[in-house]
């Protein structure tokens, strides 16, 4: 898992039934992120929050990136 804002990385152990939302919240909590909106990227694809690890096709040693969703205008 990569933090898009800082470039720092951490390994994350996931089960097939974990959802993308849980991954986002776990990573945001680990990096003590502000309480804003975040999305998760795998390659060039944003992952839907309700998808599970299995649905999203996340496999061993895949790189995921946690990205803040810019809310400002």
């Amino acid at each position, binding site marked *: 898992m990569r933090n898009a804002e800082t470039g720092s990385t951490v390994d994350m152990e996931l089960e097939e039934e974990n959802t993308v939302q849980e991954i986002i919240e776990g990573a945001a909590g680990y990096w003590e992120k502000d309480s804003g909106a975040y999305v998760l990227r795998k390659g060039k694809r944003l992952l839907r929050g309700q998808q599970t690890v299995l649905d999203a096709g996340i496999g061993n040693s895949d790189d995921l990136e946690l990205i803040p969703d810019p809310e400002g*205008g």
Partner: protein
Amino acid sequence: MNRPIKPGESDEDRMERSRRVGWIDLDRIGKSRTLVIGAGALGNEVVKNLVLSGFEDITIVDMDRVVLSNLNRCLFFREEDAKRRSFKATALADMAQRMNAACRVSGMVMKVQDLDEGVFRSSDVVLGCLDNIAARLHVNAHCCHLGRPLIDGGTLSTSGKVQVVIPPDSPCLQCSMNRTHYRALERRFSCTGSDTTFFEPKLAAEITTTSVIAAIQVREAIKVLSGREDRCLHHLLRYDGLDNQALELEVPLDPDCGLHRRQ
């Protein structure tokens, strides 16, 4: 027989250099109606680009007033506007109108949630320049329901995004949201039972990133109105100004998204 030409006449045409681009349909752009929702930093830059690009009928919607901290990134606002607490929508419309007398730029001071559906219906393209998720969801729902192209921009510090929604086929803004978006939305409108408190986070913002995002939004609007949807952003562009990176990301259409189920 062709009309005789005169030396230097090309410099007498405001849009002459734009015509040289070739694929831009200036006639359609000039006749189109454009709705800009949000008159903050993105709204200022977007409206500037629209007027310069030949858009002649622009409606701006915003409920807020100008404050001094807007002036690091809002081209059209002045210190006098902050002192007078001018409404952003009308201050922006007045200044934009001065750029080209042929334009009709109007400002509507209201929450987007109070905007008549007819305004959406009569618009050819909608540019989202908003600063909160609730308003984005509202605009997104109306555009999807009425089949109006929506080009949404967002910024945070030196990063930003642009998402193009062309109903009914495109994934919409709601398709890319998850629980963190709804939690952010809940924090903004916190109801204690006896009253509702509004939490407005002060987000990092600077003009260079705003300019980039606004420029991309308007260029996508030009493509939509010029019949070049085939060259539009298919989904979402993420821009990182610190690392000079731009990445087009695919947003999967959410089969559970109510806006698509109805279509």
